[in-house]
């Protein structure tokens, strides 16, 4: 495909993509790859330095850090991706309805989005955890509940660009049903915009969700998650600072990879961006709603 060809010319982009794909496989097959049991406590190996059996050493309970890191990919990255996919899907459906049908439906949907976007994501995540209890699932629910509004708004703007085009009007004129117009004629052209928006929020979502896990609101012990591993490491930070390294570096690398990929994807999907800075103007709608910037909370 053209996009992949464009992407493959961008070294940073393709490296990030490969890194993410490999990470995903490692995360899914962690039980087969991990050298040790991630929750096996061995007090004799407390704070042991790296060895051939435990490549990254052992934590305060003598658990294998490498295995915990590998098992941690699932909650730290893969589940975040699932939550992102869910909220983008809801946002896309709502955004398509609002942008395609316009009128009162659009007005109502946009007002609902305004209300949803009035709450900072962190605050709602905290409220939902307060009601449903501590757990990664509840945090993910909170993110899906809040983030769709933002995606809906951006996707609506994208859809509105295409609804007015002649070929869509022609399709309407020959009596094609609305759902098939949306699926056949609008979804394919807006897909690139959706991909860019989604990939650009993946990095910040990983950071935010790991932050909530760090606060102890996410995954429950003894399961491994990078944010929680950092929170455990913080307890012994003054005596064993090296425990902070692995999970922290992992988060930075994954977030960087997603951010690079998102930038490269944007260029690969809109090659005119490469030519000059000025043509970024053409994509202004993409940055348009002030709320967009607002959601990039760290």
């Amino acid at each position, binding site marked *: 495909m053209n996009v992949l060809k464009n992407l493959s010319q961008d070294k940073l982009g393709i490296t990030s993509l490969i890194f993410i794909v490999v990470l995903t496989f490692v995360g899914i097959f962690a039980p087969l790859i991990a050298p040790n049991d991630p929750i096996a406590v061995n007090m004799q190996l407390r704070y042991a330095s790296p060895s051939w059996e435990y490549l990254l050493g052992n934590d305060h309970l003598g658990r294998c850090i490498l295995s915990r890191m590998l098992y941690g990919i699932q909650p730290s990255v893969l589940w975040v991706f699932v939550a992102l996919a869910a909220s983008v899907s809801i946002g896309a459906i709502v955004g398509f309805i609002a942008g395609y049908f316009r009128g009162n439906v659009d007005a109502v949907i946009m007002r609902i989005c305004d209300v949803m976007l009035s709450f900072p994501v962190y605050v709602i995540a905290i409220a939902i955890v307060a*009601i449903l209890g501590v757990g990664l699932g509840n945090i993910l629910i909170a993110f899906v509940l809040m983030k769709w509004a933002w995606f809906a708004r951006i996707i609506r703007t994208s859809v509105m660009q295409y609804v007015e085009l002649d070929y869509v009007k022609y399709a309407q004129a020959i009596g094609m049903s609305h759902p098939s117009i949306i699926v056949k004629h609008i979804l394919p052209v807006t897909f690139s915009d959706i991909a860019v928006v989604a990939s650009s929020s993946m990095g910040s979502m990983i*950071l935010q969700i790991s932050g909530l896990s*760090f606060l102890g609101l996410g995954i429950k012990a003894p399961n491994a998650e990078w944010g929680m591993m950092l929170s455990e490491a913080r307890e012994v930070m003054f005596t064993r600072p090296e425990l902070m390294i692995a999970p922290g570096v992992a988060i930075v690398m994954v977030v960087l990879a997603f951010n690079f990929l998102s930038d490269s994807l944007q260029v690969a999907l809109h090659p005119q961006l490469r030519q000059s*800075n000025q043509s970024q103007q053409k994509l202004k709608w993409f940055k348009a709603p002030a709320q967009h910037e607002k959601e990039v909370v760290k």
Partner: protein
Amino acid sequence: MGIYIMKRMLITLPLLLAVSFLTFVLISFSPMEPAEVVLRAQEVPVITEELIEQTNEKLGFNKPFIVQYFHWLIACLQLDFGQSYVKNAPVWSLMGPAFMNTFKLTVISSFVIIAFSVLFGVLCALNERTAVDRLLRALLFGFTAVPAYWLGAIFIFVFSVKLDLLPTSGMDGAKSYILPVTVIALGYIGLYFRNIRSAMLNNLNEDYVLYGRASGLPENKITMHILRNSLQVAISIFCMAIPIILGGTVVIENVFAWPGLGSLSISAILSRDFPVIQAYVLIVAVAFVVFNMMSDILNATFNPRIRDGN
């Protein structure tokens, strides 16, 4: 202009109502029976069905939902958020000081963010595509990927423990602001300086710059003009940053043991102190809406095109 402000404020009112209603609905999903919770908080030894009935009667918990909402809303407008279940004190007496602490941290961080975003943005724009531009952009891009709590912990380890220069945590004089403000700022500068940079670059291609050059204006004067026009972006960033940081300091406050809203809300969650959580959600959401409104109004003041567009 006056009409724009009026319009913008009128839109805000229903939004605030909707936000407060959603907050009320959200917390009413909590699994505990309110009367029982109130009785527990008052340390009533034996809680009987009868007593619960009486409390329901007294506090209006058996009234229709919408009536309860309005009672609650009116109380909230008078800053009466009820009694904390855990600390046996009015919620506002906990919330007020915490809000001020978070607000101070937020405003100071915003100033730092704006100062450095402008500095780096201008520096990059004036040196576009040189080593300075590339290096700064790479560095700041990198910082946006670093978890704030991790950076905070590293800073504490380096500057407070190893070098013993700054306090590790708490809110104790000007020095205790340095680390949290730096950590917050580093995350956001990377997002915002890009806007300043591209605003500067866009301005470089405007007609007035060409005209200035054509009429032989010295280059530094032209730069001043560009800078003035780009500062509009800076103002809107400043207004946008305040609500974002206000809603996002939870993690930082936790790392630095800052006695603000974030710390308060986390301890409230872990002890299921619902009135505190409810007040927290409401206060931050209202602040968020109000600051957004102010940022729109300020933007419109400086940029008539937005005003007329509406």
